[in-house]
C-alpha cells in the first residue's frame, strides 16, 4: 500500500492519426485530466519521454506548466511503470500533488520506425555487436524464442497461438488496430514472412501511432474525485543488460526480480491478481513473462489461465513504440469495470508489467480498487 492512487486514465488517438507527437500528448494529458475531474492547473508533476532531448521540460513548456517535479528516465517501454513508482514516492514525500504520466508516438504516420540497432559510439555494443548486423530488437527476442522452444520441446506453431489469442481479444476492443479484421489463424501466423527466425511478421507487435496518460494523486484526495480511485499497491523493477551477449540465461529475464519485488511490496502473491497487462512486444514475451511473474511454471506459460492483455496488447491493439503507459490505462479500466465485452468480471487487483529494450529493463506495478 502506498497511499497513492491513479485518478484518471485515457488514450490519445491511436492507429494512423496524421497528428504530431505534441498534439497526441495534448490529447492524452487533457483526456486523462478530464477523466480524473482535474485540470491542467492542478498538475505539478510530469513524467514523459520520447518528445525531445528534454521531454518533461518540453511538455511542461508546451502545456504552459511549471511543475515542481519531473521524470524523464529513459529505459525503454518499461519506464512508465517506473514512473508510477517515482511518482508515488514524490507524492508521498510531498514534493508534488498531481502527477501526469504521459506518452505519445506518431511513428506510423511519420514512418519513423527503425529496424536496425542504433549504436552509441564508445559502447561495447558498437564494437562487438554492430559488425554482426542484428535487427533490433527482434533478433534478441528471436534468440530467446529459439532457446525457449528448444528447452521446452515446443514449435513455432505453439507460439503462433499467442498471436491468435491476441487478435481474439482485440476483436472485443473497438479501439484496437485489428478490431474488425476477423479472426487470425495459426496457419496465417506461420505463413507470414519470416523476419528473424523463429519470429515472423505476425509474431511481432504492431507499428502504430498512439499513447496515453494517467493522473496520479494521493489516495485521500482521489477519494473526493469523480472516478473510483485505483490504488498503487506495489511496484518493483530490475535492469539486466543492454548487450545481446550479456545475459547468462536468455530465459531468466529481469521480470522474475521485478515481479517478486512488486509482490513483496504489495504483500500479495500471483494468485491474488485478477488481470495482467503484460508487454507483448513479440509472441515469445507472453509465455515467458507470465512464467517469470509467477503465473505459470517454466515452460507452461502458453497454458497460463490468468486473464491477460485484455485489450489485444501490442500484438493486436496498439504499439506506439513504447506500450507501458497503455498497459496502465487498460489495467485501470479493468479495475473500474468499464471494459464492456472484454471486462474480467469482478476484477479487483491488476498487474501491469513493462519491458524495455531487449528484455533489458523490467518494471511491475500492482494496482487495486479502493475499498
Amino acid at each position, binding site marked *: 500500500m502506498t497511499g497513492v492512487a491513479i485518478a484518471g486514465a485515457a488514450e490519445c488517438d491511436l492507429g494512423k492519426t496524421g497528428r504530431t507527437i505534441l498534439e497526441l500528448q495534448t490529447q492524452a494529458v487533457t483526456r486523462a485530466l478530464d477523466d480524473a475531474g482535474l485540470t491542467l492547473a492542478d498538475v505539478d508533476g510530469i513524467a514523459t519521454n520520447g518528445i525531445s532531448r528534454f521531454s518533461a521540460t518540453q511538455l511542461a513548456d508546451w502545456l504552459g506548466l511549471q511543475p515542481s517535479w519531473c521524470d524523464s528516465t529513459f529505459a525503454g517501454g518499461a519506464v512508465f511503470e517506473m514512473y508510477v513508482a517515482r511518482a508515488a514516492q514524490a507524492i508521498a514525500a510531498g514534493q508534488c500533488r498531481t502527477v501526469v504520466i504521459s506518452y505519445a508516438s506518431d511513428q506510423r504516420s511519420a514512418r519513423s520506425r527503425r529496424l536496425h540497432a542504433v549504436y552509441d559510439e564508445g559502447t561495447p555494443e558498437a564494437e*562487438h*555487436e554492430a559488425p554482426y548486423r542484428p*535487427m533490433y530488437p527482434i533478433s534478441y527476442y528471436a*534468440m530467446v524464442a529459439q532457446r525457449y522452444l528448444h528447452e521446452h520441446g515446443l514449435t513455432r506453431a505453439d507460439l503462433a497461438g499467442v498471436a491468435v489469442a491476441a487478435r481474439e481479444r482485440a476483436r472485443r476492443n473497438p479501439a484496437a488496430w485489428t478490431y474488425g479484421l476477423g479472426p487470425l489463424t495459426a496457419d496465417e501466423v506461420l505463413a507470414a514472412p519470416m523476419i528473424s527466425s*523463429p519470429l515472423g511478421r505476425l509474431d511481432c507487435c504492431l507499428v502504430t501511432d498512439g499513447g496515453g496518460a494517467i493522473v496520479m494523486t494521493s489516495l485521500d484526495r482521489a477519494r473526493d474525485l469523480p472516478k473510483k480511485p485505483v490504488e498503487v499497491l506495489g511496484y518493483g523493477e530490475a535492469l539486466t543488460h543492454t548487450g545481446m*551477449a550479456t545475459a547468462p540465461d536468455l530465459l531468466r529475464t529481469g521480470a522474475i526480480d521485478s515481479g517478486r519485488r512488486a509482490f513483496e511490496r504489495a504483500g500479495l502473491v500471483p494468485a491474488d491478481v485478477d488481470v495482467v497487462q503484460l508487454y507483448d512486444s513479440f509472441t515469445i514475451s507472453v509465455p515467458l513473462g507470465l512464467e517469470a511473474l509467477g503465473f505459470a511454471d517454466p515452460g507452461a506459460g502458453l497454458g497460463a489461465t490468468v486473464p491477460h492483455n485484455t485489450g489485444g496488447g501490442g500484438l493486436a491493439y496498439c504499439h506506439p513504440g513504447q506500450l507501458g503507459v497503455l498497459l496502465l490505462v487498460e489495467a485501470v479500466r479493468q479495475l473500474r469495470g468499464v471494459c464492456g465485452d472484454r471486462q474480467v468480471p469482478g476484477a479487483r487487483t491488476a498487474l501491469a508489467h513493462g519491458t524495455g529494450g531487449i528484455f533489458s529493463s523490467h518494471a511491475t506495478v500492482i494496482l487495486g480498487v479502493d475499498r
Partner: protein
Amino acid sequence: MRLQHCLGCGTCQHPLRPICVTCGRHRPDEVPAAGTGVVDSFTVVNRTGEPFVLARVRLTEGPIVLTHLTGIPDPRCDQPVRLVEGSDPPVFTGRKDTGSDDGL
C-alpha cells in the same frame, strides 16, 4: 579473440573492461580465447540481401559472444562450434563434440 582472466576470482569476462565485474579487481589479465564453445541460441536474419545466422556462442571459458555461424546449414542450440581461424569479425563454425578443444 581476446578475453580477460581475473587472478583474483578466476572468472573470465568479455568484453574487455578496466575491472573484473565479478570481484571488482582492477586490470584483469588479457588472454587469448581457446576458440571453442557451444551455440546458446541463434536466429536466421532475413533482412536485405543474403540471410545470415546470428548467434550467441557460449565460449568454453564462460563468456558469451555475439557472432555469426557459417557453414552450418541447420544450426541447433547447444551444438559445439569453433572459431574460424583468421575470421574478422570472428565467426564460428561446427565442430565434433569430443569434449576437448581439438577442433582448433
